[in-house]
């Protein structure tokens, strides 16, 4: 085995698995990744293009949401419907009896 091959193997052993790395990448987005875990993640990402891709994709989802909050919010009403207002007023005029 070449020296690089041996290095890769050793690094793969000390670094987290992809499954763990996925969790760590999410934690990094939330700022809850510890220093030691972030070193492990860094090593893993150098070696693993699948996880680099995974990280890129979850980051790009976040970026899209930040860039276009109105689109991410689309269809969410931000005011009471006028019928709802009338209904509420009606209820408040005659609140239901205590149970």
């Amino acid at each position: 085995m070449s020296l690089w091959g041996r290095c890769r193997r050793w690094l793969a052993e000390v670094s987290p698995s992809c499954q763990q790395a996925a969790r760590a990448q999410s934690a990094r987005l939330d700022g809850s990744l510890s220093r030691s875990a972030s070193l492990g993640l860094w090593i893993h990402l150098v070696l693993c293009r699948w996880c680099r891709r995974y990280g890129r994709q979850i980051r790009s989802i976040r970026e899209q949401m930040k860039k276009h909050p109105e689109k991410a919010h689309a269809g969410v009403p931000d005011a009471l419907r006028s019928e709802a207002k009338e209904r509420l007023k009606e209820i408040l005029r005659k609140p239901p009896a205590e149970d």
Partner: protein
Amino acid sequence: MEEKDARRDGMRPLSVDKTWLPACAHQRDGAPLAMKSEPTSPDVDPAPPAAPRQGKLSDPERWVDEHGDYLFKYAMTRVRDPARAEDLVQETFLAALKGGKSFEGRAAEKSWLIGILKNKVVDAYRKTSRESSFTDLEFYQDEERDRFVQEGLFKGSWDHDLGPQEWSAEAGGTLDSQEFWKAFHDCSSKLPKAISTAFLLRELDEMETPEICGVLGISENNLWVMLHRARMALRRCLEANWFTKTR
């Protein structure tokens, strides 16, 4: 930066509202807290008189016009369901009617109503988490194990056939396309309610961790797990519904 500020104004005027907290003593009487027991001048009253009974909830209907939309928006951000948000606003008004307090001003009235609503939202989540459905539980346990190699030397590595595919569109601007946003809404609506709420509160409303945990009644660790699951599931769903279709 400007855009961000505008966004904050537009999207989350609610989560920063802490005015329902009791005002500090020194804000009220102009003297620091420690000085309170030894008044410096005769007209500083150590125990200010009760608020003038001006607004004895004379006209609850006025609340609907004045505070209805604000309360609704506050509830919407947290429950993401117009019908439930309306119910919560109604419960808030009814509880307020029962509690019947008086206020110095409308700002205080609004903060008081928000305080009630806040508790209603927390109760609502407690109730749903007790009735947590099987699919939710399944979702919590599912680490998308099927996407990872299960055995052997490469245990825990992405399965190369099922792992993340290259989103070639990612390089260009097509990520922001109608198809993308349609898939985004379809996918996020498929997430269990609490998980999508946690995710949207974090990513869209940029709410701080302790507040999200407070709203959902969960621990920080729970939150990290939920956010991780949300990202994983959303990414996977987007890949299936948007990327592979547009390819």
